[in-house]
């Protein structure tokens, strides 16, 4: 099986869907002539031409809304935000227009659009460029939120997102674009609302999504090696719809649950998972759910400060030990 980078997997997903459906187009800042700010759309302008791979001006509200309007008449726009921090400039289009047109029209219209780009703290970009937007968009009825952790998942989920008849927020991570993984040559799709157990285990359930799956995996490996702790890592893959069944089944087995996110703890995705787990697994839990999240502060620039704010392997490993009352 070919081993490719995450950015190539995303590129393949877009190219394959554009080849099969003439209504799919990509629009965003620097996606065409510049070949993508992070080279995700490399070569696509040459392949599809300037009507289908379209450079937009720096005008997020404008081109996000353009995408919604085009989707209302059946086109399937892929709108790239250079980062989802900039989607906040287009917030009204993303949370008020895209997910509500179906509802306000009494189901007469669909908005089959994908908003994709990077989310997460990045490399010392300061407070405004470092948003982790997963909780913000997961909060909104009418949106779907997808966040892959491997090249395989990225390709299968993005193809599903492009074919989906609802607006999809597709969250990528700058530090993961170069990550490599096996991606089959034959076509495949990954259904939304299906979590993936990235690492089976018996001692503690750890729930992650996107980049935090990698952090959780590294923590699990370390705990296995140093203390023989056997951690199960669940990759949610989609936050809305969320595969609660997989989480609950795992927690019923292990009795412990840790959530890991790079967003904030206050009203975060982990808070929602904790509420669901305590509601449905109250008698199975041997401790309260432990949440690992960014510290509840704006993202600082200075590297040691940033590393202190964003949860790393050590913090996750400590949280797991705390969750299972490990004395070591």
């Amino acid at each position, binding site marked *: 099986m070919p081993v490719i980078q995450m950015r190539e997997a995303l590129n393949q997903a877009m190219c394959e869907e554009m080849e099969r459906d003439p209504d799919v*187009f990509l629009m965003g800042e620097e996606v065409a002539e510049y070949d993508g700010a992070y080279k995700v759309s490399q070569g696509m302008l040459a392949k599809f031409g300037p*009507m289908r791979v379209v450079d*937009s*001006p720096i*005008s997020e*509200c*404008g*081109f*996000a*809304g*353009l*995408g*919604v*309007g*085009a*989707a*209302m*008449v*059946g*086109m399937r*726009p892929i709108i790239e935000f250079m980062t989802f921090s900039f989607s906040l400039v287009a917030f*009204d*289009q993303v949370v*008020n*227009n895209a*997910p509500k*047109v*179906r*509802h*306000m*029209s*009494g*189901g*007469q*219209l*669909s908005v089959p659009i994908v908003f994709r780009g990077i989310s997460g703290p990045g490399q010392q970009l300061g407070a405004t460029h470092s948003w982790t937007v997963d909780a913000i968009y997961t909060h909104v*009825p*009418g949106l*779907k939120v997808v966040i892959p952790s491997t090249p395989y998942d990225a390709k299968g989920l993005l193809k599903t997102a492009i074919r*989906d*008849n*609802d607006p999809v927020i597709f969250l990528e991570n700058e530090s993961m674009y170069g990550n490599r993984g096996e991606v089959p040559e034959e076509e495949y799709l990954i259904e939304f*609302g299906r979590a993936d157990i990235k690492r089976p285990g018996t001692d503690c359930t750890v729930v992650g999504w996107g980049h935090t799956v990698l952090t959780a995996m590294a923590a699990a490996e370390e705990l296995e090696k140093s203390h023989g702790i056997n951690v199960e890592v669940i990759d949610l893959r989609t936050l809305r*719809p*969320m595969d*609660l069944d997989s989480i609950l089944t795992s927690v019923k087995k292990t009795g412990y649950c840790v959530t890991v996110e790079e967003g904030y703890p206050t009203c975060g995705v982990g808070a929602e998972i904790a509420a*669901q787990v305590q509601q449905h697994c109250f008698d199975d839990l041997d401790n309260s759910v432990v949440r690992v999240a960014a510290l509840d502060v704006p993202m600082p620039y200075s590297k040691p400060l940033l590393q202190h704010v964003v949860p790393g392997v050590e913090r996750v490993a400590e949280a797991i030990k705390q969750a299972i009352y490990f004395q070591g």
Partner: protein
Amino acid sequence: MTTVTVPAVKAEPTDAELMQWYRQMVLIRQFELRCAQSYQQQKIGGFCHLYVGQEAVAVGSIGAVRPDDYIITAYRDHGHAIARGMDIYPLFGELYGKRSGCSHGKGGSMHFFDAEKNFFGGHAIVGAHIPLAVGLGWAIKYRKQDRVALCYFGDGAINQGSFHEALNLAGLFKLPCIFLVENNGYGMGTHVHRASAVTDLKLRTADAYGIPGKDVDGMDCLAMYRMVRSAADYCRAGNGSIFLEVKTYRYRGHSMSDPQKYRTREEVAEFQKHDPIGRLEKILQEKRLLDDAKISAIADEIHREVEAAHEKADADPTPDLEDVWTDIYAQPFGPYR
């Protein structure tokens, strides 16, 4: 200064079209007056923005385009929906929050939609639908279709960022969009002179976005028709977008809850002297298509039509409570369902 000539169109409406527009304008007015009553009777909730006084804008402009052209508007949307040919019964149903409403009671006054008639709403955040209109224009150009997109908004919208971003994109990509600002003088209670640094609105897009601007008397149905016909021809020929400053006036408040302290009764009375229905009535009388008896017969007939639709919708059932879970996703999902 960018100078672009938009050639005048010679095409004149037929007598049948003129009569149809007259009936539509009377229908819109009577519909709106019934809405005012129903609002006071608390049959209509939320915000309700009446189109009384502005009827010629929607009727003349929509009369100038084809049924497959796209139409999108803001929250003062009753007139456009009726001019587009939507039946008034599902409109009353929508206003009364009934299942028979055009949006099954989920949208309300500000969100009338009719996908089959290419009427794309009914949008309530000021200026937020203007980028959507650009998307409609983008789809037309992308699919190489012979269509235009008409986008209506008020003078209150043109200082929103979404307006400027949208018009820049429409100008940049040369999209077949007609942007109509219905300048009724007030963004809610703030006069345009207190809101816009440049109040000659037609000048605001040519130099800025390469979109020629024209002004037109929105109290004159025929002037609206001629201007929009020529604008549509200009767009269809691949020249890009047009911006129209439509000078109009609303007789009623911004919404039903507006005490109108910002203007005088005399100002309203002055505009009512140029009433759009009265003006078309005069033309039709000169053409001997209307006389006093026929005017009152049409008024009675439309009154009966409005009352019948209102009564039918009023008697309709409200939606099932289970309906809150539909029309959100193509396929609903949990966990909260």
